[in-house]
């Protein structure tokens, strides 16, 4: 289903399996490598959803890859969102520098509405996103679990069972739908690069179709909270490219490195490269527990 990953994670696995099974000789070690320090770039991200909660916009800068200090958020920026009807919603900076929150009582995303983000950095440039339509999300019909044998457990243990998640989605007909799943297991968001789940209805438009997550395993008794997000095509493409760049997989047929360009632009200088993404999504949530 995750066709966009076709030859990224799979080929990594192929190569690894090939190594493990035949030779057990491939090796990885952490090293110190002198990396060139490029120009600093502004990074802006944020999501408007249908959930009644404050939404977050973060404004920061890139740092050197070897730099292990925390992200230097950009304080004191003017951050606001406009909707299709020219309503303005201001975001207020929180205690955490560079993190801005909306007022949950003022702004709640509604499907069909469109939003645009503006960020004016004090003493700096003005930035804006492209318009994002908050698309309706298809119904997440059912969530259930299937069993697999844990490839990480010893070959000799035939009962080394693990669980993985499957879901049936009642896809909205006649339109292209793009999805993201966020999985919280026992209240912890699964957020490793290989745990990002995005998919679309390219081959299942208008049907009740099943999707499965084979990179996140659960144990008996685990509690799952599954959020299903509706993405725009642009957000989906952004995530596809993002996944290809953070899977840090240069083994086998991998995608060449490239800048992950989002939908944020500098209003003062069209040439300036701005990173990050501002998106809008409807979210539907389902809960499930793994029972043996």
């Amino acid at each position, binding site marked *: 289903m995750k066709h966009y990953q076709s030859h990224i994670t799979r080929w990594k696995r192929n190569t690894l399996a090939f190594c493990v099974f035949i030779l057990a000789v491939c090796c990885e070690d952490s090293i110190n490598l002198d990396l060139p320090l490029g120009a600093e770039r502004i990074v802006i991200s944020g999501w408007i959803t249908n959930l009644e909660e404050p939404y977050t916009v973060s404004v920061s800068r890139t740092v050197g890859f070897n730099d292990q200090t925390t992200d230097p958020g950009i304080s004191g920026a003017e951050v606001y969102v406009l909707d299709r009807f020219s309503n303005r919603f201001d975001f207020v900076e929180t205690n955490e520098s560079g993190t801005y929150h909306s007022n949950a009582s003022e702004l709640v995303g509604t499907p069909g509405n469109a939003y645009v983000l503006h960020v004016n950095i004090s003493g700096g440039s003005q930035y804006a996103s492209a318009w994002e339509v908050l698309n309706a999300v298809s119904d997440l019909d059912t969530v259930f679990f299937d069993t697999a044998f*844990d490839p990480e457990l010893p070959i000799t243990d035939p009962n080394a069972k693990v669980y993985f998640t499957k879901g049936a989605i009642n896809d909205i007909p006649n339109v292209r739908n793009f999805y993201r799943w966020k999985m919280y297991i026992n209240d912890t968001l699964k957020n490793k690069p290989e745990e990002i789940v995005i998919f679309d209805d390219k081959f299942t438009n208008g049907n009740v179709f099943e999707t499965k997550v084979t990179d996140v395993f659960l144990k008996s008794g685990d509690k799952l909270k599954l959020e299903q997000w509706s993405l725009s095509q642009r957000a989906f493409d952004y995530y596809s490219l993002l996944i290809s760049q953070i899977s840090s997989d240069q083994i086998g047929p991998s995608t060449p490195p490239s800048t992950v360009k989002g939908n944020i632009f500098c209003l003062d200088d069209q040439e300036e490269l701005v990173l990050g993404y501002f998106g809008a999504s409807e979210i539907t949530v389902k809960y499930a527990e793994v029972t043996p």
Partner: protein
Amino acid sequence: MEVLRCKMKLAFTLCMIITSTVFCLAQSSLSQKWIELPKDKLLVEEVLREVFPSYKIQISYSDNIVPLKKTIRFKQKINQVGKVLDEIIRNEDLVWVEEDNQIFLKFYNRPEYEYSYTISGKIREQGTNEPLIGAYILSEENQKGAVANAYGFYSLTLPGGKHNVKVNFIGHESIEESIHLTKNTVFNFSLNPKLQELLDVVVESKSEIEMSYQNTLMGTNKLNMDVVGDIPYFLGEVDVFQSSLLLPGITNVGEGTSGINVRGGSSDQNLILLDEALIYNSHHFFGLTSVFNPDAVNDIEIYKGSYPVNYGGRLSSVMHIRHRDGNNEKFSLSGGLGLITSRLLLEGPIQKSKSSYLISGRSTFWDFLTRGANNPAISDYRANFRDFNAKFNFDINKNNKIYFSGYVGQDENKFGLDVLRKWGNDVFSMRLNHIHNVKLFSNFTAYISNYSYRVIEEDDKASFVGTSKITDYALKSDFNYFRNPEHIYNFGGSVTFHRLAPGKRIPGVSSTNNEVDLGSEHAVESYAYFSNEIKLNPKVTMTSGLRFSHFSLLGPGDVFMYSSGTTKTINTIVDTVSYSSGENIKTFFNVHPRITLKYQLNETSALKVNYSSLVQYMHRLSNTITPSSSDIWKASGTYLKPSTGDQFTVGYYKYFKKSSFEASAEAFYRKNKNIVEFKGGADLLFNPAIETELLSGTSRSFGFEVFLKKDLGNLSGWLGYTLSKSEIMVDGEYEEEKINNGTYFPTDFNRTHDLSLSAIYRLNKKWTLSSNFVYQTGRPFSFPSGKYNFDGFIVPHYEERNRNRLPDYHRLDVAARLEGRQIKKNGKVKKTKSYWVFSMYNVYSRRNTQAYLFRESEENPEQTEVVRYSLLGVLVPSVTYNFKF
């Protein structure tokens, strides 16, 4: 347009050169006069009594001395009078003279040496009757010779009289034959393979004449299977492609990757042929081995410099692998057991000395071991391949021979809960060799070559079978005309029908997937060529040729129209033009001149220069650094232009007679246009508007290669060194259509220095030792210029591609071959021959860097780390066992 005009000009000049070398100028006015013959086959009588009088040409002769009833066949109807007279007096005791505007045919006591006759036939191996491709025959008297073609056919035209002819082929005992030529004669030669014991005694060396008869082409490597089979390999897996990587100018992206890169070309720019038929995917099993079963291979020809004019359709190189025909004298069974593959080959006569078969198969067996595992997570794993070859040939009569060949190969893999993938080539071909006369040889080939890739998802509601396919139906003909040792003409043509089915998904029975079918794309590709190899004088040989190519993309099909002034995306489609079945969507014509000049400096050294022009109409769409088996092919059309290339090469070649070393130094410059590149994150799967994901680039490469080779004696091997640079520029009109701001950047496989040394030493009758050493500059790589946090992910930020490099790569391998016992305990000679190969890959356990991974630290996800990834960090030993009955 300018380039095309230049090419046309060059083509025209070449045409002129070819024509002027074909037609010699006559001496005076009457004999220079052009006349038209009524037919192309005439009696001498008709020429003298009807044709000449009709043109008021006065001719005096005596009926007694002129062969009036002799039939002459003219190549064309319009001829010069002198030319017609030359045909009349050929091989007759006659001479013609022109005096006072009149022609006299006079008696002339023609000495034997003024007659010319042709000896022709086949050069084969004694005992197996396999053709010896590239064997040569020489007349020691007048130092003229000829080389056997791909089917072992030779033709040598010599003056009448006595000749001592010598037939030579590497690794075989020479034959010397004394012949008295009084008419055109067919001579078939059979050379005995040299026994290994003899190599101790005789130190071979090639004669100077032989050197001068080496063909004029440059950047050509012929791999000798005896040598290829003896060098060390990873896991002992003998492979044509792995051995080709040890040649100068040929590299790849790294270990365990598919695709080879020749002189800065991407891997889809190699024309890979198996017995004349094109192969779309030439790799098995993570690129570890190629689809060519080494036991069945007879001959490997690699062209990376000057391309013979009969080859085209790809920009970078030609690799023609020819399988053996199969022993038509006696049955034999051979095979081997290795860690990756096991092989079996059967061959033998169908009708002794007239027809034979060769059947071979290979398979991996190692995943049978994992199938026994209790844990289905492991026993469900699949990673295997198999292939099967069958070849039959029949001598219909002395002038006709027919071949039927088939290849079927399949790779399969499945990992954990992932889908099952299967892919492979199927190739079927029929060839007919026809000897028209002693000087004219032809081969006709008809083949079907198919590559298909399948994805099978068995999970109930999500089940589907996805396929992509490309099929070629091709017809081609190749003619070799050996006019005389100074003039060889090659000509021919081909038509190929391409059928591409880029994507189809059929849902399973209870699946909730929709059926998706992108339909198929159809194209016709054709070409015609003519080339002339001519010895202008004893020192200068010129091979010049022209190739005309045509490509048409045909309907049915839809072509999207995009709004102008912006980059193409699905949102900028403004219209769709539909073409009906067979309707022409887009057609391309190209003319490709190719010319090589060879200047023989002295008996053992030569200088050569070459220019080659090339075009590629079929493109592999692969947005990954190394090719993947799921990559689809796409025909040139409305938006995807044909890629074109020009290459210049200069080279110096020397043969050291005493030490029997061959040395060459070549410098090349190559420029390719309209190379396909991809937008960041391009989605190529089931995309009907695939042009929205494509970019177009220009690549250039230049370099210097040195090659030192020793084929003969107890110590053999080669040294190859390449100094090169290859770059690509993607500078589209819009920002989204540029990579690295539209400037030149290094290709993924650009290795500045590339050195390889392979040596084989025959220690004694039992042991042969061999070794490879490889040193290469690390490949270009991209380092992040920063990082940032997005949605809780740490994202490495790349602004430029391939501006950095991995550390240098080097490796030493050794192998030893032990011949099995050949004498039984009772003193009798064993019927079975066997040998063991013990090899050690990466002897000093070099941990070569395959890649750097820039990722979140595993211990602390808040932090990042740089990880060095090595595919092999240890010595890899292996053993294979081979046998032959």
